[in-house]
């Protein structure tokens, strides 16, 4: 099977800081991959390089066999790379409906979906449990609902790769259970790349886990392998849970 996404020697430096440092990474279609690592490890920077939000200092990104290293972010989205922001970034002054209408009309314009904007929006809102909030301004939704709206917008892009940057941050425990079910459902027709600090969520969802530290991949493996890895214990798991 050909990988959905690979990176070769991908790096991004900020001044002297090597936020992402020569990363070789492979993602197979259909998997749920979690990225974990301590604060400042370079996780957000890494996925930003994948989505095209920021440009690499060196290295390359290949999506579905095509080199997309120089491709602007908006074109990558049209190819099927969707990104939800770590810091909630919804359109606060627009209704939840209008927030989701933007990605829906994008896929309609690109001919990747068919039908009406309204039905596409309602489908995405229903999947995220926001169907009765369509008329509410996004800025007036609860924090948890805003995070879900982010996911609804990502979903509505009909992504082949959905990148979620700490989606459960700030969610209540009850909301997290629903969220786990939602991601499982999304993963039926998309590959999911999930940055997550909440270890129970990672352990329940991920097929494989990649551990970042200081801009490099420290380890990679199944949840079982990662749990057993002493180095990871030292660098991360021990540090946050000890």
């Amino acid at each position, binding site marked *: 099977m050909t990988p959905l996404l690979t990176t070769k020697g991908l790096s991004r430096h900020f001044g002297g800081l090597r936020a992402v440092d020569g990363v070789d990474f492979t993602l197979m279609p259909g998997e749920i991959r979690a990225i974990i690592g301590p604060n400042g490890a370079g996780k957000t920077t890494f996925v930003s390089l994948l989505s095209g*939000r920021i440009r690499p200092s060196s290295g390359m990104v290949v999506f579905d066999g095509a080199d997309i290293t120089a491709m*602007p972010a*908006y074109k990558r989205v049209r190819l099927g790379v969707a990104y939800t922001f770590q810091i909630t*970034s919804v*359109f606060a002054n*627009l209704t939840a409906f*209008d927030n989701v209408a933007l990605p829906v009309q994008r896929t309609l314009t690109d001919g990747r979906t068919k039908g009406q904007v309204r039905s596409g929006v309602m489908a995405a809102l229903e999947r995220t449990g926001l169907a009765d909030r369509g008329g509410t301004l996004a800025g007036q939704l609860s924090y948890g609902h805003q995070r879900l709206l982010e996911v609804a917008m990502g979903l509505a892009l009909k992504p082949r790769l959905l990148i979620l940057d700490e989606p459960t941050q700030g969610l209540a425990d009850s909301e997290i259970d629903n969220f786990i079910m939602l991601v499982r459902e999304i993963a039926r027709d998309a590959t999911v790349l999930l940055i997550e600090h909440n270890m129970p969520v990672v352990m329940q969802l991920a097929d494989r886990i990649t551990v970042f530290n200081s801009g490099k991949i420290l380890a990679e493996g199944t949840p079982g392998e990662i749990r057993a890895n002493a180095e990871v214990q030292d660098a991360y798991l021990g540090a946050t849970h000890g």
Partner: protein
Amino acid sequence: MRDASPAKTYALHIGVIALLFALNLVLPDYHQSLFARIMALAVFAMGYNLLFGYVGLLSLGHAMFFSAGLYGAGLTVYHLGWGVPEAFVAGVACGALLALVIGLLALRTSGVAFMIVTMMFAQVFYLLILYFAAWTGGDQGLVIQQASRVIAIGGASFDLTDPTVRYMSALALFSIILLVTLAVVRSRFGRVLVAIRENEERTKMLGYNTVANKLAAVVAAGAICAASGAAYALLFGYVGSGFASVQYSILPLLWVLLGGAATTLGPLIGTLFMYYVTDITSGFTSAYLLIVGVALILLVLFFPKGILGSIRERWLRWLP
């Protein structure tokens, strides 16, 4: 923002047009003429509002697009003897082309830099008009004779110097642009423009080429402002460099702020309000600009979103 039943919205806009149509029959001569001027200039404000209100791009140079239309129409009539329709098209084309060039350059910047860059370009445009005084008439301007301002369609001819023809022509242009604006802001394109205003970074990450969308808005707004300028030249028979000065870049901003940015009818209300406040106060004091200034400050203090913007916020949430 988007009403489930657009019927109410369309009824309101058609109603405003019908009201303006009816006013032609009852307004005394002086006010009929003033209203024609206000409608022509409200088109300028609507073009400006498309960019400032909906996309959130604050330009301080839109006098150049208005005067591109003004001179594009005025000079082709004056020097080349073109007919009114051709001259109008020439004016709009000049504005659109200029907007394309300025947009490509100025959209490399944003925020304060965008304000300054647009102001600089407008200043260059103003100085060029003065420099080529042999053709433009410089600060004296040019008067377009009545004979050149007659439209012949089939057997009928319409004299734009006739008050009723002039009023109806201004109303026709105003109505078309109002309905076009309404259609644009309700369209998918309009939704993207508002998204760019609210959060450009996020809009990009939803797959939109925000630079291309902004450029399209700059050109559309430029063409609308130029249509206003072209109509002004043909309806009132005068082109002059004053219309390219900084004052005419600030005025549409004031009209839009007063009426309500990002409302379809705000530009008309703002233009109307400002014209009448100026008109009434200048009737009894020479310090009328002071009173206009105070009125503006009071409005901004009590209605920060403009007249229609505040009405929408408080009472009529469905207003587009």
